[in-house]
């Protein structure tokens, strides 16, 4: 009889299962609608960059050219799907299968960390953000494009209801990611609500 799966193994299994049909779910609607906001956020890329949760690489076409990016993802199947987009990128993307909680990088390795619809799925979001805080240089920047819960009726209740269903197959819909970023030790620089207070970009910094 096999041992119980860890939260990271459960997350990996969910995304491995979704990988073959993820593009058909996300690329037609969500990515097209979010393109201007993601392109604007990723335009800040410079220096030594960590991209957390590359997935199938749907974000890669929005990256500015010529960057050197280290990308990780917990799901090997998702990264397999990303290979063509990685190869097509006009720059360098080094992608590895890795759990954010177990990153081997030394403290202060990166100038910037980017995430895109990631912290709805990281099993322990504050611990994951603390891991990002550790690998950032002092003064390093965190840029996030995330969907979160809402602070407003009736959207808050709807996101709670949706989470009951969505967590079975993938992401949570009701996380308070801005508070989690603060709890991990970052200083918030700017939050931009893209749709209601549910889809947003977050810019934060590790105190120097």
């Amino acid at each position: 009889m096999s041992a119980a799966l860890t939260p990271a193994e459960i997350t990996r299994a969910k995304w491995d299962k979704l990988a073959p049909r993820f593009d058909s779910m996300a690329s037609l609607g969500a990515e097209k609608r979010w393109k201007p906001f993601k392109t604007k956020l990723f335009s800040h890329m410079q220096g030594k960059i960590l991209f957390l949760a590359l997935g199938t690489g749907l974000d890669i076409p929005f990256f500015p050219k010529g960057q050197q990016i280290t990308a990780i993802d917990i799901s090997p199947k998702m990264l397999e799907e990303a290979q063509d987009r990685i190869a097509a990128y006009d720059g360098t993307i080094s992608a590895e299968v890795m759990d954010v909680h177990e990153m081997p990088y030394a403290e202060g390795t990166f100038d910037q960390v980017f995430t895109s619809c990631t912290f709805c799925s990281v099993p322990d979001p504050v611990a994951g953000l603390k891991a990002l805080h550790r690998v950032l240089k002092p003064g390093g920047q965190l840029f996030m494009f995330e969907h979160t819960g809402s602070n407003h009726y009736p959207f808050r209740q709807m996101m709670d209801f949706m989470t009951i269903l969505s967590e079975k197959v993938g992401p949570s819909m009701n996380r308070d990611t801005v508070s989690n970023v603060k709890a991990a030790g970052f200083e918030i620089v700017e939050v931009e609500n893209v749709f209601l207070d549910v889809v947003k970009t977050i810019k934060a910094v590790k105190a120097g």
Partner: protein
Amino acid sequence: MDHRLYYVVGDFLVSLLIGVVAGLVAWAIVGPGWNMWAAMALMMPLGMVIGMLIYFPLGSRLGAMEAMIPSMYTGMWAGMVVGMMEAMMPLPLHHAAEMGAACGVAEIIFIWLANSILRGVTKA
């Protein structure tokens, strides 16, 4: 609201469709003699499910949260309002469809207004 025409028209039409379908389902299920509160309590979650069922083939072409939230919200309200009205007095089929459509229009306008208030930049 999103000012790109494709999304304005798409969001509007999907919300309208969900309102009509949820209204017609409420008309088919609820009848005179039903307790009004029971009709509303049943049709709220059922309307949300109808919204989700229409979201996946149609709304998902328009986005994730930007389409999913209005779909569920419209389904919930159209189902609840038409269910309530049908419990109080028998409605002709076309009135149920019209009322559902009106709910669809009202809800997408509500979402656009809420979005115009909530979206934007907050600096630390």
